[in-house]
């Protein structure tokens, strides 16, 4: 277990505080540099389709997934690279999927918006906003029925608050005391529209209306996210039912890589402030240094190591072959 991502989801019972947060740091840097490579590969026209970057939101995926076991389930979104990496996916097979190669997690058939990985409990990223809320709740239903003590985490953006199916399954989850955590990543923008223009009432009020345990947290602070996630996951695992966690965060890039001119929906000043004052990697780095767990040279070494991993993952993916065309009709039916 030497790569940045394959260490995920191990039991952290024995890890010291220092080891735990250095791990989290490496995880967040991995996601950031993965997305940098995506941006690079995409703008070089090597990547077909769409790319929705997770940069800026790393503390949410890492804080949550570090509270999970490898056999716990997640469902992800169109902005899902961070969730996949944080749950333990390897960057080379992820990049292969992004480029439509056979070595990808889905043999190239899913692409960026549909990465799924049974080995890490990843039920799949979903390109329908709110599309996976049923799947995550169903995984929790199965976990309870089969008494496996697994927990399911449903990641979605605040845009999914507009989808009725979310409220249908939250009602079911609370009625049936299901071990599911609804994680609302509030990056404030439904695509190109500020969420306050689309969202009546409060976000947490939606959960409390069902009697669901609800909390909000600074989504730029991985330690805060992890602390509350650990409590909610433990609660769900011990049979006390679902929870809803609002993580306030920020999407550094546009809705997708091509969304360059954003002034009509948010200011450059706002973007600058989040990036400089509240960057999740900087926030954790500062804490690590203050605690004496690392110095800036050590953290730079982490970044350099991760960069090598990501560059070699891209090289692997570019060199990997496409699937044979006869693959097209395989896996329509099991």
């Amino acid at each position, binding site marked *: 277990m030497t790569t940045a991502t394959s260490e995920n989801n191990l039991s952290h019972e024995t890890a010291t505080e220092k080891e735990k947060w250095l791990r989290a740091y490496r995880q967040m840097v991995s996601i950031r540099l993965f997305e940098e490579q995506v941006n690079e590969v995409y703008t070089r026209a090597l990547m077909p389709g769409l790319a929705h970057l997770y940069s800026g939101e790393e503390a949410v995926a890492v804080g949550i997934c570090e509270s999970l076991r490898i056999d716990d389930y997640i469902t992800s979104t169109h902005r899902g690279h961070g969730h996949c990496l944080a749950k333990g996916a390897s960057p080379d097979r992820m990049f292969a999927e992004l480029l439509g190669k056979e070595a990808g997690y889905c043999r190239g*058939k899913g692409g960026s918006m549909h990465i799924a990985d049974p080995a890490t409990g990843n039920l799949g990223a979903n390109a329908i906003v709110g599309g996976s809320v049923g799947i995550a709740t169903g995984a929790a239903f199965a976990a309870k029925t089969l008494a496996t003590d697994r927990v399911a985490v449903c990641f979605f953006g605040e845009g999914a608050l507009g989808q009725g199916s979310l409220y249908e399954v939250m009602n079911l989850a609370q009625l049936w005391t299901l071990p599911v955590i609804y994680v609302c990543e509030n990056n404030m923008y439904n695509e190109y529209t500020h969420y306050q223009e689309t969202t009546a009432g409060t976000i947490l009020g939606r959960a409390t209306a069902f009697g669901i345990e609800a909390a909000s947290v600074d989504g730029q602070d991985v330690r805060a996210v992890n602390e509350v996630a650990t409590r909610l996951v433990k609660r769900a695992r011990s049979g006390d039912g679902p929870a809803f966690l609002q993580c306030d965060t920020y999407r550094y890039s546009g809705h997708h890589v091509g969304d360059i001119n954003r002034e009509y929906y948010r200011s450059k000043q706002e973007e600058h402030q989040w990036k400089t004052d509240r960057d999740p990697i900087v926030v954790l780095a500062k804490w690590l240094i203050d605690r004496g767990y690392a110095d800036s040279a050590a953290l730079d070494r982490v970044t350099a190591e991760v960069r090598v991993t990501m560059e070699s993952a891209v090289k692997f993916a570019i060199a990997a072959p496409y699937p044979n065309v006869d693959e097209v009709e395989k896996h329509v039916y099991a």
Partner: protein
Amino acid sequence: MPERELTFAQAVREALAEEMRRDSRVCIIGEDVAEAGTPFKVLSGLLEEFGAKRVVDTPISEAGFTGVAVGAAMTGLRPVVDIMFGDFITLTMDQMVNQAAKAHYMSGGHWRVPMVMRTTLGATRRSAAQHSQSLHAWFSHVPGLKVVLPSTPYDAKGLLKSAIRDENPVVFFEDKMMYKLKGPVPEDDYTIPLGVADVKRAGDDITLVATSSMVQVALGAAIMLEKEGISAEVVDPRTTWPLDEKILIDSAKKTSRVIVLDEGYGRYGVTAELAAVIAEGAFYDLDAPVKRMGAMHVPIPFSPPLEDATVPTEQTVFDAARLMCKPA
């Protein structure tokens, strides 16, 4: 000993009960499936035998509990979802079309969705436009789904058991008017493979390809035609996907005349597809264009004489077949 007879509803219930005894992962999820046993009483007694953990009443949330079934199927259960009226499948469309149908393919074969959706079809119950449609064509259009249309109690039991054992999402449409239809049903544990058509009646002069509710109509018309000296073959595809093209084409080649009957809308519908398959496969053996008969292209009206005019009947099928075989 005479063959045991069951109603269509009893055959469905027996298939479910047998599969639930055989496999503890099979569970039923839907509105009023437990104590009520559904408004059609198809599930009566299952709660008592299998308990509330496996016969699960839900709120009126078709999209929500269908989505739950998709996720549960991916992670170890084999849910059978009950959608009370086929009209309500509209509420489940994203879960079935974008999620259930695609999870296996999009994941490169990693995830499987072994679930069944049981629902209904059919007009003439005076239930008006939102409780009377036959919308099985919609799911038949989607790669990744299988669609089953049983027409007899025997087929209902054998096909439902296959559907539950299938590794894919299967939609099982039951004709509401057929629940009280009786027919022989063996007590054995038998299955009927999905994708194998059945010749319900052999004949030489004309083929009536009929699905679900229309099979009984076709058989009635065939008796009327016999009195006119016209020998009609009735072929029931039993599943719209997978589709047994060979039996349809072989029958068309043999008789040279075909009417395709299905209670869904004809335009862009099941009859359109079946007619195209037959036209492509048997063109040089046909003596007449393939004729399609289905629901009129109108919302199903409430008023009884209006509603009755929307679906093919034994008389209208007889008239069409006689005209095709003996042009005036």
